[in-house]
């Protein structure tokens, strides 16, 4: 729309001086920006920086009578420990599918929730589990063993007893 130099602007014409727009837009974008960043900031709250779960490291003494291939599950832990002539190893008993606790069976593990089955080395043989059961880090602490549920080791890693 063009304007004659001396024409009286009609109320329907768009305003020619955008100064109010500047103020208005500044207010609008300040409000929008504040809203956005405060929402982002608030979203930061529920993402915990420190997890409240108890320590994942624990020390355990294996029973002397533990036969090779038989799992020893320390009370209160979801870890199965095995001892044979090559040494000691620990396999997590948390199902890689949806987090149920698998039961050590003869020559493997079985999940009660959706029927996943693993062999003695934790490799999936049946069911919906997407991954093998992880082998956990074990350190020989002089007769006892320190197991770290937070650290995995390549399958087959064993610690001499």
């Amino acid at each position, binding site marked *: 729309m063009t304007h004659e130099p001396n024409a009286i602007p009609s109320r329907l014409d768009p305003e020619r001086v955008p100064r109010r727009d500047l103020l208005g837009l500044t207010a609008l974008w300040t409000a929008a920006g504040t809203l956005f960043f405060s929402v982002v900031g608030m979203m930061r709250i*529920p*993402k*915990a920086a420190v*997890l*409240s*779960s108890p320590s994942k490291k624990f020390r355990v003494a294996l029973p002397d009578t533990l036969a090779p291939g038989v799992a020893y599950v320390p009370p*209160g*832990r*979801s870890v199965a420990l095995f001892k044979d002539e090559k040494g000691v190893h620990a396999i997590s008993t948390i199902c890689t*599918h*949806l*987090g*149920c*606790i698998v039961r050590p069976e003869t020559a493997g593990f*079985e*999940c*009660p*929730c*959706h*029927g996943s089955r693993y062999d003695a080395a934790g490799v*999936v*043989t*049946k*069911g*919906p589990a*997407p*991954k093998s059961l992880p082998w956990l880090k074990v350190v020989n602490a002089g007769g006892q063993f320190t197991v770290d549920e937070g650290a995995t080791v390549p399958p087959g890693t064993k610690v001499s007893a």
Partner: protein
Amino acid sequence: MSVKEPPSAPTALQEFVTNLKAAPRRIAETAVRSGTPDTDRTRSTFIFGNVFLHLHAVRTHRWTLRWAATLGLGIASVAAFLLTLITGVLLMFYYKPYTDVAYQSIKDIHFVVPTGRLIRNIHRWAANVMVVTVILHMARAFYTAAYRKPREFNWLIGMGLLVVTLGLSFTGYLLPWDQLAYWAITIGANIAQSPREVTDALGLTDVFDPGGLQKLLLLGSDAVGAEALIRFYLLHVMILPLALAALLSVHFWRVRKDGGLAKPADVDQRLGTPTVPTYPVFTMAPNKTYQLAAIVRGRTPAVGRGPENTVPSMPHLFYAELGVFMLTVLVCVALSVWSDAPLKELANPLVPENPAKAPWYFLGLQELVAFSAFAGGIVVPSIVLIGLGLIPYLDRSDVGTGLWCGGPGGWPLVRRSIAVGLGIALAVEAFIIRFGWLREWIPGIPQLVITVVNPGTVITLLYGAWSVWMVRRFSSARAGALALFTCFLCGFVVLTIIGTYFRGPNWGFYWSPADWPKH
């Protein structure tokens, strides 16, 4: 000789006494400003003079008041929600959201608190009734094509309400802190984490881990524990109810602003001549004009035609609503007297339930999750939600609006789709129960293959194919929507029933719990 003096003006004291005597009547009058609703005018003012009722239109179309128009499902959902709200507040008197006392406090509510067991039962049953009625209400809106212009956005709001309803139910599941709760939520949280199934397979989890983030936000930790309980409690009693209330307000408001319930274009002919004397429109119209904006938009019920086929909402609509409300209360209370809400042993993070089952409306998903957590728990539900949301924007015709199974294809198409939907779901389930799935045939198969090819995606694909065929056959998006919606509803029913009644320990198939192995 005394002349009797003319009666003087009452003294201030007399006036005070008179006013005091009149106070109760005046309080009642000023509270309900319009008086008894016995004329059309006072029936109108009864509604728009009351903040709680004025969301209703003053007059309601006769089409809307037929039982077959809505089956009262929306009101039943609201009634169930109000029941959970009231009973929920009562339960909050005693419930303590801490892992060491939560279970005990539920036990107290169940066994010690006066009427506590009944209140808890009503809360649980009303929540279940709400899930059912919300799903059926959505089906009603779909089959009567009520999502069409101008109601597209209200369909989306309704989907939001469905998600929040399921969220409320799911978060409430953890609070008793028993075995049922603990393992259902463990499974749910790991479904939230299941995008790792793909990121692990692609080796991306270290740099891009949306699954882990979702689980962390949900549980506040890496396992279900004290943090998870307080989060679920907060969601259950504060965040989700507020979200529901906000969405519900918009939902109601839009129903009104979008012109009430969807009606067929030839609704007046279908209804025939009113049996009651017609309303003298322009002489005794209620003393309220519709907003100018509403008239310009042309969506209010009475614009453009006389309200001959409408009746006053007071009493016709209100009594119908009250009837549905009381029926819902009756059903919930009767179920609560008949069956107690479950409470199993105290949650034990070391021994999962066997079988560990989610709430019943998630058991259909759990049936799919038993092959791939990501496909069954995230991909298929997302496809369903996106598909549902797109329906009003893909079906732009107006043939059959307001009629059951309206539109091309109609009831015969729906009937065939029921057969196809049930058939495909049952055939796939029978196949996997009899023959297993890929990993049983090829033990070393990569998980990524199973994530892409599993019963959930196969069923979805077959349903999609049937729907596309129907779109082409009737050259109508509505026909495709009718086919697909019907199929998914049937699939949901089949999977839910199998998951609920025919799955036992280790998620094995059993004809009856009596066949479960002893252990």
